[in-house]
């Protein structure tokens, strides 16, 4: 171990002022402020081709963005599919996810849908010991029984993610056997088109 160099020791050097947080943002050194997580709905128009879903999913996995749900389906344009991706990230993470997504060749546009129309569909298979009770809860959440078997009834309902959570919680008292949820689908409100966002 030779090869040392001459010069002032680290402690003798002029000290830097200021600090950044782990996101690389300059901060007041006295306040430890890490940006809070937020839930954001992203909508991407992508080529309707094999492999695109895995490319997008792979990007999110590789770069460690937290996805809550991801849905994909056809649009009015035959060549395009729409992906709705719910992410939970601090602000800079949401921005980064959008930018990385925009770089993928099959991705045509990405928008952030705050104030959007958001819906999710759920199928909930409930024990059928109390048919009247199940029917009442289903009605309360705007669902309906789509299949009634010997022991169980399957209820279909749509709503916001929170509404679906609440409905499932309400069914718990009868006993919930299985649940299948689609994840959120969303569109921009009103006449606004769900394409490039305005950021």
């Amino acid at each position, binding site marked *: *171990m*030779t*090869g*040392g*160099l*001459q*010069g*002032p*020791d*680290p402690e003798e*050097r*002029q*000290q*830097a*002022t*200021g*600090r*950044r*947080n*782990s*996101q*690389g*943002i*300059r901060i007041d050194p006295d306040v430890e402020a890490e940006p809070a997580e937020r839930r954001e709905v992203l909508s991407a128009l992508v080529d309707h081709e094999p*492999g695109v879903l*895995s*490319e997008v999913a*792979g990007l999110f996995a*590789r770069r460690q963005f937290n996805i809550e749900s991801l849905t994909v389906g056809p649009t009015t344009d035959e060549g395009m599919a729409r992906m709705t991706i719910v992410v939970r990230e601090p602000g*800079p993470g949401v*921005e*980064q996810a959008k*930018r*990385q997504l*925009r*770089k*993928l*060749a099959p991705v045509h546009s990405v928008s952030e849908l705050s104030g959007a129309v958001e819906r999710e569909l759920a199928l909930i298979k409930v024990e059928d010991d109390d048919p009247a009770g199940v029917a009442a809860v289903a009605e309360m959440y705007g669902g309906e029984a789509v299949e009634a078997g010997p022991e169980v009834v399957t209820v279909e309902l749509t709503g916001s993610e929170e509404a679906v959570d609440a409905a499932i919680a309400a069914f718990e008292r009868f006993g919930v056997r299985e649940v299948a949820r689609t994840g959120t689908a969303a569109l921009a409100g009103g006449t606004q088109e769900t394409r490039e966002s305005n950021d």
Partner: protein
Amino acid sequence: MSETESETRTAERAVQTGAEAAISALEDAGVEVGFGVQGGAIMPVYDALGQSDIRHVTMAHEQGAAHAADAYGIVTGEPGLCLATSGPGATNLVTGLADADMDSDPMVALTGQVPTDMVGNDAFQETDTTGVTTPITKTNYFATDAGTVGDTVRDAVAAASEGRQGPTLVDLPKDVTQAETATSPSHEPETKPTPEAPAEAVDEAARAFAAAEKPVILAGGGVIKGEATPELRQFAVDHGVPVVTTMPGVGAFDETHPLALGMAGMHGTGPANMALTHCDFMLAVGTRFDDRLTGGVETFAPAARIAHIDIDASEVSKNVHADYPLIGDASAVLHQLDSAVPRSPDAADWQAQCETWEREYPMDYDAPEDEPVKPQFVVEAVDEATAGDTVVTTGVGQHQMWAVQYWTFTEPRTWVSSHGLGTMGYGLPAAIGAKVAAPEREVVSFEGDGSFLMTCQELSVAVREELDITVFVLNNEAIGMVRQWQDAFFEGRRTASEYPWGPDFATVAEAFGAAGFTIDTYDDVADTVEAAREYDGPSVVDCRIDPREDVYPMVPSGGDNGAFALREEHL
């Protein structure tokens, strides 16, 4: 071309195989050279290549083909081409693709694939090549039919060079390349306008720059890739701003210029790291703020407002927040910024401070006559002996750092190294690619004994192609960078890092038909460097250097750039 001639040509093209369509697309895109290895699924492509004007350089290993193509891309600025067969041929390209992806080097890979109807059946030599390479290419394509394969190849070449450059790959099933097609390439690749940054953003950044008292420019590899070297130099000189480079940015600014502070980061110079740590304004151009540059982000340029020019929006504020994001082409935005700057910053004191740091932290080394040769001495001797446009390639490790620290770079596209991926074995195939790209320029490679052992079979290619390259193996009988970290951070336990069993590299060179030389003492250096350079063909110099030598300065991973260690006791 006369009308009848061009008609015959169109007629000839009217029916062609998918392979021929792919090769004509390459020719139309101006591709002149390809590096690769033959194999079953790519044979139709090779057959068409053999009948074209494109020169093919057969490599010993596909990894070598990818690195050669990568270096060709760095030296010329145009995408380098590599070819491989399906399965192991394609997977052997993986390291080279990942390397090019990290460093945004323009490159196109063509891989053979099993016939379409066998895909998914685990056929002989089948690998899901597009699946494997999705995360390590800018974009990749699976060719579906002979009629469109020409367009696909054209798109792949265009995508490799436009915007932020990078590697692209086209996977070519054998039935697609063998099928005949009547369609000739249908569309011209779109030429996109050079993107400028929004005027308002430029004005804001310009005002902040003018008000700075301690401004610094951080020049990244994007300056060179974006051909913005002249604009950057002009801007720095006009406004009197000290310039620091990243490792890929080496060559973006003439290191002999008084404003040059050298490379920053883990093994950067004292003045460069001090200037980054204490600046109040940073103009960062074409850099992705890699952790080897920033150290811990908490302590990176903690007082600086940062203006970041980059062609890739996803790099801005990814690792370090940009107060003034300037998304666009580097030279276009530097022009914009220059016109918008109301006045140069008043930074005389700051310049004086930077000069003081340059005096306080010289890059130096002791070279006692009675001890083994210091690697830095060899680097300096070769630098002195060669011209300013000499291309330097390296492997990865201590020798790479000594090469970048002790060579004085003055020109862009002369420093060819594996930055982001840190790929041992890069140097020799890169020297081959660089020499093929620039036969009129001198090409030297600095290697570690460990790095050289990884790809030295490519010497056979340099001999066959009569490539006059000179390889200096800075032989410390160890994978020295690992040994250095073991000594510093693992209490000196040298698990698997000592290589006293390495071969005699001069003999290895001779076995391949190259010239071999050895340097044992300081007295050997000048004459041996001369003899190796004068040898007309590839030569290898086994430089038996001081095995105890370490690389300094050093900022440990995640550390504070301003607290760089100058010697072991600082760590």
